[in-house]
Each structure stands twice: as C-alpha cells, then as structure tokens.
C-alpha cells in the first residue's frame, strides 16, 4: 500500500504528504487553497466535471482533484496563466447559465458566487448566452431551477433512494445537457434526504419548497467567514488633471436607478466628493446635456433600446474613462431576464395580454418619439468599451466610495470581501 511520506512542491513551497492522496486535499491541509466547485468529500473517484481546480502539475495542465501526490511532484497553483484558466472556467459558467444573484435565495451561500468573489470577477470575458432553461416545479418537495445548474454531478452521485436508485440523472448531451429528477422516486425520499439534496448543490439549482436555504439561518455563510478579507480587483489607473477639479458625468440606462441610490448611500462622504470634483451631465445635477468634456463617466443600467445605445455612445465620446456601475451595466441584470424569452412574446405580454392592458388591445406602442426596443438587453460593454466595472445590485456604497477614492487619490484601495457583491 501507498502510505510512505513523500515530498512535493506547491508554488515553490516544500510539503510533506502521504503518497497517493488527492492533491487538492494535501494542498488545503497545508493552507494552500486550490478553488473547487464540483469536488465533494464523499465522492471517489472525483467528479472532475467543473475543471476549476486546474493546476500545472509537473509541467502538465491537469485537475488537482484527480491527481494523486507523488514524490518530487511540482505543482503550480497560482501563476497568472493558471489562475486565468480557473477564472475563465468560472466566467464560462456565469455566461452559460442564467445566474441572477439578486433573485436567488442561495445568494451568499453559493459556491459559484463565492468563487467569483474570491477571484474578483466582475465581468465575464464570454458573452452571456441567455438560453431558455426550464424551471421544474413538478416534484413534490423539490424545485429544480435549471437556469442555475452547473452540471457538477454531485446530486446524481449522492442522492439515492433507500434501495440505491438514482433520483437525479443527466439528460441529453453537450450544451443541451441538464439534470433530470425522477418525480416518483423523489416522493420516496425522506425529508432529511431532500434537504441534503439542496445542501449538496453548490448553487441554487435544487431548492426545497417552503424551506429557506440560508445557512446559518438569517446569515450568509460566506459573509460571516472572517478568513475572507480582500478581493483581488483589477488595477484602475486614471490620469487626472492637476490644475482643475476632475469632471464626472453619470447616467442610468435600462436600470432602476438603484445604483444612483447607492451613490447617495455614501452619506457624509458625499460632501467630500463634491469638494473634490465637479459634476456635469447627471441626474444628480439635473444637467441634461454635456457642456464640456468629462474625465469620468459612470454608467448604470444595460442597453435595452436605441436611445440607451445613443446615450452610451455619447458618453464614450465625451468621457475619458467609463465606469460600469452595477449588474445591469455589466451583463444586463434584471432587465435581461427578458433575454431568455422571445421579444415578440415580451411585447404581447406587456401590451396585449397583461391584466392591465385595455380589453381587446391591438396596438403595441411605436412612434418616432419613443425608443425602439432591442431584441435583447445588452451589456454596456457590447456597445462601447467600458474601462472598469463595479459589480452589485446595487453595488455596495463603500465599494463605490473606495473606487472613487482610488481614482481621486491615485492609489489602490483594497476592496473587502463583504463589499464585493453581485446582489
């Protein structure tokens, strides 16, 4: 048997371990965090579906969950290239599913979201796909939210009936794959097993009707974790004029103005800001048109129609730096919930068949004076280049304030884990 003590190097650090144990566990026991998502302590061989624990092992790229430690092994976990592969995979998952954190009861207790925060992920390099996915209320106690499923396979492996039958199973293949649930067998599960199904799900895809998923109750697991300090954010470098006050413009496109409300939440320190900068076009000043060139433009909201696109383009033209504020600006946010539904259905629902529409309504508003709706809500970054993003729905006031200070003072102020949010 393999139980010899061997030596390996992880990120240059020499570590002793028992030969043949999974690398991901050995690293963790030695205080080196290799991020994982599908990994679960009770499953062997490991699932290796998410690929987030990808590392460089003896010069080969492989997953840490499937790798067993050997003598002389050299592992690179945190070099920029490897960290970028891992980040890209998390970004792929966000782009592939419909992860609407503000509307998800697992928010704050979600492993995928936590991975995003840990990596300081504010925008996915991949365009969101907005594929329509089913929501399955069919089972007696479980509610399957396929929009959020990351196909990790945990529930398939772990949740079985007393006589060993699978309650969950993959259906279809490739990008059409989803996790199906057996209605009949779900009925046979004990209440404890149903809750276990919810709890092994790393995201909010398996929910239990009438049961809160927050753990601990009333709190958010990751917010309460004191070991989580700062989020690695990308550097924001701005050359500001020294001879005058910097000029800022703000706007809200397809959004709810909540991000502007969050700016107001900066409270007392707003007075400092007003001392330091000058506001031009902005709902805060009620200046409707640019009267001069601006240093910074702050954009709230996504792009839902041609008017939004025009305003955004004007901002790009008139401002040196554009900051996207909030989830709508980043990927479309709540208005983008319509992206999984055909535009035609949206229009019918809103103007012809809704409970508030005139009986027998036959007209969908359209005139030169009203904006023309886009086929879907776009990210601001789809239309023009955005230089920096502040995530959140709305972004935390402290986060906004720190970014403003970073810009004005020219030094990076770290963002605390608890200030970096998607909800």
């Amino acid at each position: 048997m393999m139980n010899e003590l061997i030596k390996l190097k992880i990120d240059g650090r020499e570590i002793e371990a028992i030969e043949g144990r999974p690398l991901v566990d050995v690293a963790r026991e030695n205080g080196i965090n290799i991020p994982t998502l599908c990994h679960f302590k009770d499953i062997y061989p490991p699932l290796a579906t998410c690929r987030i624990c990808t590392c460089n092992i003896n010069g080969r790229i492989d997953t840490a969950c499937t790798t067993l430690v050997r003598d002389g092994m050299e592992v690179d976990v945190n070099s920029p290239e490897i960290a970028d592969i891992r980040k890209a995979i998390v970004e792929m998952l966000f782009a592939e599913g419909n992860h609407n954190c503000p509307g998800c009861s697992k928010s704050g207790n979600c492993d995928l979201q936590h991975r995003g925060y840990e990596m300081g992920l504010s925008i996915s390099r991949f365009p969101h796909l907005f594929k329509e996915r089913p929501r399955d209320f069919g089972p007696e106690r479980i509610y399957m939210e396929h929009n959020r499923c990351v196909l990790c396979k945990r529930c398939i492996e772990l949740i079985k009936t007393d006589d060993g039958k699978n309650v969950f199973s993959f259906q279809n293949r490739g990008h059409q794959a989803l996790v199906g649930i057996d209605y009949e067998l779900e009925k046979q599960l004990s209440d404890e097993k149903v809750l276990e199904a919810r709890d092994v799900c790393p995201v909010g895809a398996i929910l239990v009707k009438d049961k809160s998923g927050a753990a601990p109750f009333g709190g958010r697991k990751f917010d309460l974790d004191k070991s989580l300090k700062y989020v690695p954010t990308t550097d924001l470098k701005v050359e500001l004029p020294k001879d005058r006050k910097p000029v800022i413009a703000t706007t809200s496109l397809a959004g709810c103005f909540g991000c502007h409300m969050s700016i107001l939440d900066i409270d007392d320190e707003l007075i400092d800001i007003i001392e330091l900068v000058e506001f031009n076009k902005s709902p805060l000043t009620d200046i409707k048109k640019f009267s001069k060139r601006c240093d910074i433009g702050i954009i709230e909201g996504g792009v839902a129609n041609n008017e939004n696109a025009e305003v955004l383009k004007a901002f790009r033209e008139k401002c040196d730096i554009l900051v996207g504020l909030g989830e709508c600006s980043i990927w479309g946010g709540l208005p983008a919930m319509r992206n999984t539904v055909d535009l035609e259905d949206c229009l019918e629902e809103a103007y012809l068949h809704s409970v508030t529409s005139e009986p027998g309504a036959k007209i969908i508003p359209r005139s030169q004076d009203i904006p023309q709706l886009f086929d879907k809500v776009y990210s601001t970054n789809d239309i023009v280049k955005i230089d920096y993003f502040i995530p959140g729905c709305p972004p935390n006031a402290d986060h906004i304030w720190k970014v403003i200070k970073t810009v004005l003072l020219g030094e990076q102020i770290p963002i605390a884990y608890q200030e970096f949010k998607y909800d």
Partner: protein
Amino acid sequence: MAANRLRHDRTQILNYLWELQDEKGYISDSDVRRLSGELNFSVVEVEGILSFYHFFHRKPTGKFIIYLNDSMVSEVKGFKKVKEAFEKETGAKFGGVDPTGTFSLFETSCIGLSDQEPAALINFEPFTNLNPKKVKRIIEVLRNGGELEDIKDEVVDHTYSLTDDPVLLRPYKIGAALKKMLKLSPQAVIDIVKASGLSGMGGAFFPTGVKWQFCRRNESFQKYVICNADEGEPGTFKDRVLMNQYPGRMIEGMIIGGYAVGASKGIIYLRAEYRYLKAKLEETLEKFRDIGLLGENVLGKDGFDFDIRIQIGAGAYICGEETALIESLEGERGGPRTKVYFPVEKGLFNKPTIVNNVETFSAVASILELGAENFNSRGTQGSKGTKLLSISGHCKKPGVYEIEWGTKIKDVLKACGARDANYIQVSGPSGLPIRGSEDERTICTEDLLCGGSFMIFDSKTDVLDILTNFSNFFINESCGLCTPCRAGNFLVGEKLSRIRKGLEQEKVLDEIASWSKIIQEASRCGLGKTSTKFLMESIEKFPEVFKEKLVKDKKEKEFNVTEATERYLKYTEKINKS
C-alpha cells in the same frame, strides 16, 4: 419481442433500447417505464441513457428514418441540394416527420462514407453519391411500397496501396496469423508487438505492446479485449473498409490480444452507422467458431478460451474515447471517465481491459504473419510500419490508401489526383489543417500525425464554412460533462458566427486563440482537448480568410443597431397593421 422475457441485464440496455427503437421507430413513455421497472433502476436514468445517443427517439418517427450526413465533405459534394430534395420529395422538414408518417429526416455527423458523398442512411441501409434526381427516385420507390433491400447501394471500397508490399491491404488467409501465435507464449506475442513498434492507430498512438504488457501484468480471473469500431472522426472510413474487406484479420488480431493479455472475452463496439456490416461480421465470427478459431480451447490450445460478441452503438462520437466506450458497454451514458485508473488497470466492469482500434488489431495479425522486423523496418524513427488514410474531398480518387509512415503530402495528393488542394485537414476535425502548398511535409510522428482522416478542400471552398462545420460538430458531439468543452465550444461557435456577420474586430483572433487554449488545456478528455486545435491552427495558417471578415481594430465596438431593432420594428408593424 422483448416482452416475452425479462430484461434485467443493465449491460444490455443498448440492445433493449434498439429493439424498442427498431420495433416502432421510437421509444414511448410506457416503454421507458416498463424498462425501468424490469431493470430496477429509475425512469430518469433510463431517459438519461437513451437521450445521450442521437439514434434513439422519444417521439414517433416515420416508417423510413433518413439520416443525411452533414460533414464538410458532404457539404462540398452537394449536401445542401440533396437536403432540399429530401424535404421536397418527402414533404417532411429536417428534424421532423412528414404528415403521412412515412419519412423522418435528420442530419447526422459523419457516417463513414466520405468517399461517396453525399450519403445517407435510410433505416441504417447505405445510400451513396446522392443527388436530387436520385433522391427523387428513392423516395418514389419507397412511397410506392418498394423494398429498401432492393434499392440500397452497395458500399464500394476503393483501396490503393502506395507501398509495394502492403501490411493491411494484403490478401488475407484465414488462420495464418493464429497459427503463428500458437507457437508463441503470450509474453512472446507481446514482445513481438513491442518489437514491431506498432502504436495505436485510432489516433492516440499509444504503443500497443506497452498497453498489452500493462494489462498482462494486472492479475485478474477476467479480462477483456475491446475492439473500438466506433470510427466517428469525420472523414475517416478506413475501419469500414477493413471490416468489409478483411473482417477475419481484425478478429484474429483480437484473438491474439486475448491470448497475449490473458482475456477470454472480446467485444466489438460497432458504431450504429455501420450496422450494415454486422451481418458480415457475425458470419465471420460464426465461421471462426465452426473451425475452432473461437470458443473453447482455441485452435486446440488447452485452456485458451476466447469468444467475441458485437455491441452496436447508438450515435455518439464521444464513445470512440476508450473510457466513454467502456461506460457505454456497461449500460451507462457514454461519458469519459476520469483518468484515475487506466482501462488496463480497471476497465470494463473494473477488470483489466485493452481497447484497440480496428486497424490496430488488423495490424497485429499482419505483424504476426510478417514478423516484427518486417513491420519495424518500415516508416520513420518515431512511426513504425504503415498507415491507412481515408482520403476524401476534392480529389479524383477518394478511397483508402495504405502509406508507409514518412510519406510526403505531395505524393499522397498526386496519388489521389488532387489538383487544387488549398485546405487539407489532417486527422479529422480533431487534427490539424495544412495549406495545400505545404506538400513537402511528411506524415509521421516527427512532422504530421494522422489518425486516418485526410480531407482535401480546393481553393473554391470557403475556409470559414469548413471551420463552422467543424465547430458545430464538436458542439453537437460534446458529452456535456465538463465546463470547458460543453460551454467553451458553444461560446467559440457563437464568436465564429459573429465574425461571419462582420461584427468583430481584428483583435478577436487573439481572443479566440486564448479561449481555444483554455478549452484545450482544461477539458476532461481528448474530445475537448483537441476540439479547438483546428481553429487555433487555421488562425495561424489562413489569416487572410479572417481578415476579409474582420473590421480594423478601434476603440468603438462593432455593434449593429439596425439588426438589434429589426425584430421590434417588424413585429410592431405586423401587429399594428392587423
């Protein structure tokens, strides 16, 4: 009829599903429920298994199910017109069935008839060299009650040898290799295979002798020999030809493998696209049994029992990956396993197993006949012996060519009569593209490896069409288990279509290259790891085809407002008018 006996063997689930599928053209809700009850596993799991394979249907189909190959070779040979003709003649749309319930139309990945495209399978019988006229005739006959048997095409095998003394395309004499084997100990057989330098011909090129040695070393009362006849790489058809021309040689190779590693059971995993070869293979197996080459005490060798069964696949490229194939044989979804154990350690039913390709087993039989020295003296330092190429696309003489490793591209092009080769895809979509002008390059480990597929496209073929076709292939055939392959390939496909619409700037090429690299590095199995090679390489090799479509880099993004508002304007006009 299945109802007469209880279906309780999970490993037979593909056969149970085939019975149901063949019986009435689809698998109904009650079929699924009954099967789940008899097998004693959940309904959702049965659904999961059958929905993994694209030849199983859950909705009623027509009396004739037509699968038209949508590979790139088919495309350049007239796929579009043939597709239209099928729709016109049958009255059905692709993906559906005609109102009379006679014809169902589906597109499918390469069916291994690239030398006679466009080709289709109708109820799994081959129809080749299709054109609208021929389609019209076929549909007319079938509509008027004609028999499929009478009008199906004979699959023609064109074989050419570019070496004087072929290894694989040589006349076959039943039992010749086995007679040699009889005089050798199992270890001596492995030593010969090792000395020959043979490596896996399926495309992974793992040394065959080494694989067998590992398997031999792992003690077990039961071991398995699996012949991978799931030749799914688009453009390849050499295994079809080998099985059609020399089925006995492959079977002898399997018997030799069983003898060498100490296995008593062999399985041929035959792709459903080659169902029409099953009868011939069964016949050959029966003949082998009759003369004592299969069964108990093979060739009178005391204690060496070996028999072979055929398993028909059900449509899934990924099942050509050896661990996915094993999962499929065990009655699971055909997803690849993690590489914690190799099949030679824990393979089929966790027993030591060798999985080799049709061509590899055939080569083993020839090597035993000819001797290791003969094989080893051919080829290059890194690639020993000969190789079969399936040549298709724009050339006068498509077919299977046996070449010695180290043959120059130009000699291959000359032999098959390719005049205007511009884009050559070596080793299928999972391989690499070269320019026609790179004809001094050689086919071997040292330069260009080739698993068998060799597709030639002329300068009139739009390279972006080729890339889109390959990209769609991987999107459709990814098993979906791992994130980079499932999501990544889809995302890259979206990017490609944006490029074609003129919505991307030059810097997008760096983006695609970087995404492709991530998919390649982080995917779970060979499918994902090779799924973007063609794209990365063609960005290097064919920059001009991208340049044409790309907009110069600038600060502004390319965004088409007209396109984004089009649906709103159209729809409001339509509604408000009515």
